[in-house]
């Protein structure tokens, strides 16, 4: 495997590049862990990982950048945790050699250690331990360390899971696949809670308190992240654009019926200037092109609104009663006018009929270039 060069383009669908990225992250973490004076703490490691990511200047697609950065950081932090654990196990034989296995197991059941592990489930602490297995793990650090580390890693917080905004199901699947391929040979069923507990208790006894604080903080962040996601989803659901209701037009008929309820009624209320403590209120009501019905009411300043509404209601009622008669008068006037119009059109149609008779009699008036005197008069009448 090769180190991914600085400034390389990394695409999430490019398996080779992703592998190189993971390898690079782990290599960088290994080198960082080897440097003298390096203090392994969660916050510092995180900052360091981000600095490394910035320094690498990898080029990614905009929508993939967060995922790839998370992958890089998670692998970087993962490797640093492994280095830390390796260090603790390297130093542990010297510390545990004079101590018997029973003495090692005592802190796990003691009160201070349980207080130091509030995250751990109570089921694990109640399970009886097997001394033979613990002895075997202590005797062979390689056989005993590997499965215990993996279990701790599975229980421990992952940076990739913490970064919920950049969380992607595809990315999760990719990480899982890579992890599974790397640990195909491991037998998961062989992990027993006793070994895990002993390993965790050992780590806690040797690790500084800051690690506990960071793990707790990480778990709280995880919990916070899981709490945040549904709220964001709810916000998205709320922010979904609601289709605006279509505003329909008010359609009026071209010719409204002479019915008070079926036609447009125009009412005008005018308050004339006050004189002698009262105002003249002029209420006029009309429909169609009819003349208005005007009423005058004296309105006092105290109950002006009530008096105006009363006057308006009375005017409406009066006009409602009068409207049929007004409409009938209009219809009467319109009928003679329509008859006159029909007579005038009939008279104007007669001269062409005479001309038609002339054509029927065999005269060639239409063909003659000189126009007939009658037709000239008829055409003149048109203008």
């Amino acid at each position, binding site marked *: 495997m090769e180190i991914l060069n600085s400034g390389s383009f990394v695409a999430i669908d490019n398996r080779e590049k992703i592998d190189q990225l993971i390898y690079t992250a782990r290599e960088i973490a290994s080198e960082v862990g080897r440097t003298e004076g390096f203090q392994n703490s969660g916050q510092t490691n995180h900052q360091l990982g981000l600095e490394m990511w910035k320094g690498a200047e990898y080029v990614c697609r905009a929508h993939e950048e967060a995922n790839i950065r998370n992958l890089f950081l998670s692998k970087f932090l993962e490797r640093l945790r492994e280095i830390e654990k390796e260090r603790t196990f390297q130093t542990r034989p010297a510390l545990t050699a004079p101590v018997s296995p029973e003495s090692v197991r005592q802190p796990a059941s003691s009160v201070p250690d349980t207080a130091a592990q509030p995250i751990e489930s109570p089921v694990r602490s109640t399970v009886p331990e097997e001394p033979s297995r613990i002895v075997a793990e202590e005797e062979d650090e390689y056989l005993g360390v590997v499965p215990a580390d993996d279990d701790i890693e599975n229980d421990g917080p992952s940076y990739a899971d913490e970064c919920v905004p950049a969380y992607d199901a595809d990315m999760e699947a990719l990480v899982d696949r890579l992890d599974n391929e790397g640990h195909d040979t491991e037998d998961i069923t062989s992990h027993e809670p006793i070994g895990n507990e002993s390993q965790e208790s050992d780590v806690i006894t040797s690790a500084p308190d800051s690690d506990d604080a960071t793990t707790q903080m990480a778990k709280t962040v995880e919990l916070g992240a899981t709490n945040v996601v549904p709220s964001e989803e709810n916000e998205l659901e709320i922010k979904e654009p609601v289709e605006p209701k279509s505003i329909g037009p008010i359609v009026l008929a071209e010719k409204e019926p002479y019915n008070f309820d079926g036609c447009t009624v125009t009412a*005008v209320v*005018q308050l004339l200037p006050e004189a002698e403590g009262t105002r003249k209120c*002029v209420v*006029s009501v009309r429909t169609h092109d009819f*003349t*208005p019905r*005007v009423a*005058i009411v004296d309105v006092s300043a105290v109950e002006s609104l009530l008096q105006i509404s009363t006057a308006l209601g009375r005017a409406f009622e009066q006009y409602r009663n009068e409207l049929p008669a007004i409409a009938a008068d209009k219809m009467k006037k319109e009928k003679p006018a329509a008859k006159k119009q029909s007579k005038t059109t009939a008279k104007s149609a007669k001269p062409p009929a005479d001309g038609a008779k002339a054509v029927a009699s065999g005269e060639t008036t239409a063909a003659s270039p000189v126009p007939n005197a009658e037709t000239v008069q008829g055409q003149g009448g048109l203008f």
Partner: protein
Amino acid sequence: MEPNKDNAVPDPKTDSAAGTENVTEPKATIKVEWQEFELDATLAQQDKTLKVVLQPHFASIENANITREVKDGKLTVTIVKRAQHKGA
């Protein structure tokens, strides 16, 4: 020079029909746009009042010629739309 009609003080002889004969009928007859209707005589005696009252219904009354006639105490007001320039 023609006096400005808008700013002129109302002439009782021309603006009001009460100059020659008293109005005794409470309703006046208004003739406008070939229509007739009854209106309170109090509103019909002054041009200004008549325009204010009828302007919402007859927009042309603003620049119309208004003439009054009192016959047997009944006021009759004739409103004739003044000829306007083309497009007015």
